[in-house]
């Protein structure tokens, strides 16, 4: 029996590192798990379905007249604003759910498997892009119903949609980081809201920056959310890819480069 046991151990190709290919495969499997979970509990999609509908209606009719004279002229300003605000707001949920998920026993099994360490995190974040997609599509549909016809055309709308989803995915690493350091899911929600609320409102999302006091203008102009929103407006209203687009993507890459490794490291340490 002893020799059989040794045999079991010996007849394996043992490696102490995981290849990049394996990391990608493992992450995709974990993303598949995330999608299955969403399918099993579709009620977790309430926020991404209701928020775009309600916010678009609400803000357009409240601010439309005051800012652009009428609702129709306001749509090209507000739709990109709401789009970015909603989709990035959705990425908070990633951190909250990650925290909840990590407290469950199944994460112990993931940790005990010879898989890429980043996979449980990357997979969860990847699966959440489905949420961003739903929020994005719904916002555009609401805009369309209210009479918005983007000048840039469908092609640029699609590019803008992908662009927003990519940025949100990058930003969700920040919330994933909160998710792994926080003790409870509700504290993740709390910290994340505290960070995101000023960022989304102190931006050019709803009103022209010119109308703000100087100090606020300064903040609204350097605010990364403003850059994303401007990039989206350029794309869908003018059909142009500008400097803001590049800045946003560079920023997104920087966020992933910084937060992905430290999140994975903290995640491993808090095992």
């Amino acid at each position: 029996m002893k020799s059989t046991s040794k045999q079991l151990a010996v007849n394996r190709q043992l490696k102490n590192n995981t290849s990049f290919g394996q990391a990608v495969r493992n992450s995709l499997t974990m993303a598949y798990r995330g999608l299955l979970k969403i399918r099993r509990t579709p009620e977790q999609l309430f926020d991404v379905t209701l928020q775009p509908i309600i916010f678009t209606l609400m803000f357009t009719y409240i601010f439309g007249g005051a800012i652009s004279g009428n609702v129709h002229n306001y749509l090209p300003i507000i739709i990109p604003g709401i789009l970015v605000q909603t989709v990035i707001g959705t990425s908070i949920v990633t951190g909250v759910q990650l925290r909840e998920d990590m407290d469950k026993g199944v994460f112990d099994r993931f940790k005990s498997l010879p898989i890429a360490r980043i996979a449980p995190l990357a997979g969860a974040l990847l699966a959440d892009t489905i949420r961003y997609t739903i929020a994005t599509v719904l916002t555009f549909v609401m805009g369309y119903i209210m009479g918005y016809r983007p000048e840039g055309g469908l092609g640029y709308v699609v590019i803008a949609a992908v662009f927003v989803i990519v940025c949100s995915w990058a930003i969700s690493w920040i919330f994933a980081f909160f998710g792994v350091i926080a003790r409870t899911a509700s504290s993740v929600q709390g910290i994340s809201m505290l960070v995101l609320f000023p960022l989304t409102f102190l931006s050019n999302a709803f009103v022209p920056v010119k109308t703000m006091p100087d100090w606020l203008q300064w903040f609204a102009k350097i605010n990364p959310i403003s850059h994303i929103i401007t990039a989206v407006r350029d794309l869908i209203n003018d059909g142009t890819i500008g400097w803001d687009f590049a800045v946003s993507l560079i920023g997104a890459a920087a966020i992933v480069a910084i937060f992905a490794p430290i999140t994975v490291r903290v995640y491993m340490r808090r095992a």
Partner: protein
Amino acid sequence: MGHIYRTVPNNGDWAIEAHGLVKTFGDKRAVDGVNLNVRAGTIYGVLGPNGAGKTTTVRMLATLLRPDAGSAYIFGYDVVKEPQIVRQLIGVTGQYASVDESLSAIENLVIFSRLLGLSRTEARRKAAELLEEFGLTEAAKRPLKNFSGGMRRRLDLAASLIAQPPLIFLDEPTTGLDPRTRNRMWDTIRRLVKQGSTVLLTTQYLQEADELADRIAVIDRGRVVAEGTADELKASVGSSSLQLKIQNTKDIENARQTVERVLKVRSNVSLETGKITAPMADADRVTDLLIALREAGIHLAELSVQKPTLDEVFLTITGHSAKEDTSETSDEMGEVRV
């Protein structure tokens, strides 16, 4: 083959070698210098009360927790330096179900199989095979929320066996199971070892360790306080005791003499309860005793054999009860790690 054992020479037969493992939580030493040596192809039992440090020890051996001090090797591989290799050699069934509650049994197994590198069709086949083996085929598609504790535990074990790991950790595999389900779990564990695996299981029940394990480590307050085969441990704990109650109290002296003659031991008589208590080294002798009592015309009201309980094991080995508060122990250690 030689390269497998390169880190620690001459350990060909050891599935686990742990030396001086320490884990501190705050100022509490959950595991305080545990040594364990487990031979490949055997069942090793880690026995201890709540809070003894069983789970913490298993988690360190299974690369889930980094030891603060000490070393551990799985088939010669260092759990700290070569964790990915160790993970390829182990299957872990944690104390609390490590399966995905919101998914179905088959989805769980398919995902774990895919993570272990099986193709989509292989993963489906493996999942179906394991579900069949563990009697879960009918429940395969139901979400786990509606699973009973026993079903969950079986699925959990099935998930640990996907890669046919040579070493399997089972943390309290039968706690909370009914006797029938527990017996099936025991059979499964025995079968695994027959197929060549090594099993390390933790338990709070002396009987379970006795039933399954080739060797047992008794662990208390983070330390191994006794180690050996079940027989060696029981010998150190003492024998079980026999209790007799006689129908007619007039017979009690006669009964007592019969007991002492047949069992060849000294007995105690409690006059208030009319009970005779005698230590018993060999359970087979009870038959002889019953025959002798009937021949003497003595009628029994009650007969029971009290096995040594875990509490008694602890009392004997550690000199304190298993249920005592264990919080004061950390002070006596020289250094406290934070």
